[in-house]
């Protein structure tokens, strides 16, 4: 199964994301922001980083990158898409996911091992977990505060589309402790913390992040 990882100018975690795909048993495929081509991949990851220097707003310029035309169309057709950190911001700017990410309420960059609760274990990227499971993966961002209007938040909660919630502390002022959400169909997932940095015992807080990638492979194999 081929999982594409898009590299934008300023992406940082594209190599780690491809590595995570490989460790999970998939075939990583490098995709380029300037191409109108998904190279026949079965799923796409928008990685973390600072695409276009975070100029204007995080993800605001990446949203209009040529490759995003294809990503948006494919996502609407059911292609599994995962946005991590800057990738989550791009998904929100692309309107594939509702809401927006604003500067952390404490105004400082944060980097820590973060406990999350998996609220929805039925998405294309979380079916390897069980609902209520707590996982620890790194969180590192300056603009990770998830905001949306009350009606949108109520809808997300009511439809079970809050996929992850911060446990213990709310690290950035995200409304209702939301760390990650999904679309109506469950194929598009975005979150601020970084599962691709928790896929090997040697480095990072453990291997809790590997399940994202094995979940996607299981979805693609039709066994999820």
């Amino acid at each position, binding site marked *: 199964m081929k999982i594409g990882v898009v590299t934008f100018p300023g992406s940082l975690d594209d190599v780690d994301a491809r590595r995570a795909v490989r460790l999970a048993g998939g075939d990583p495929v490098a995709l380029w922001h300037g191409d109108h081509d998904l190279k026949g991949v079965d799923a796409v990851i928008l990685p973390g980083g600072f695409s276009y220097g975070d100029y204007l707003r995080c993800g605001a310029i990446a949203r209009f990158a040529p490759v995003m035309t294809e990503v948006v169309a494919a996502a609407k057709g059911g292609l599994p898409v995962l946005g991590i950190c800057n990738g989550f911001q791009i998904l929100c700017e692309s309107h594939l996911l509702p809401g927006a990410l*604003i*500067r*952390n309420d404490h105004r400082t960059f944060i980097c820590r091992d973060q406990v999350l609760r998996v609220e929805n274990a039925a998405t294309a990227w979380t079916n390897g977990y069980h609902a209520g499971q707590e996982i620890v993966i790194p969180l590192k961002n300056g603009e990770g505060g998830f905001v*949306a209007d009350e009606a949108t938040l109520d809808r997300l909660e009511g439809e079970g589309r809050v996929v992850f919630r911060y446990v213990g502390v709310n690290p950035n002022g995200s409304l209702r402790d939301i760390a990650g959400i999904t679309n109506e169909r469950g194929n598009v997932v975005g979150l601020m913390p970084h599962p691709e940095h928790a896929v090997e015992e040697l480095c990072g807080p453990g291997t809790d992040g590997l399940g994202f990638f094995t979940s996607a492979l299981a979805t693609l194999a039709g066994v999820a």
Partner: protein
Amino acid sequence: MPRVVVEVMPKPEILDPQGKAVHGALPRLGFDGILEVRQGKRFELEVAETDEATLAEVREIAETLLSNPVIEDFTVHWADTVGTVRVEEA
């Protein structure tokens, strides 16, 4: 050349950490009378025509790229009609 100004501000209900940081610095400088600071962005777009169609186009630009309607509001106006001070370029 005529210019159109687009001003983008965080919506009132959205937390503005940058504005808060600026506000927090004021008492240290001895300014105690400021109740709140909100920080936004100002864009100046140089255009060829001064017609309504140009303004409509800028509004579309403001809505699709310059602002995010989820968290920000924007206004669009002609630079000259509101007495904008033009800074002379060196």
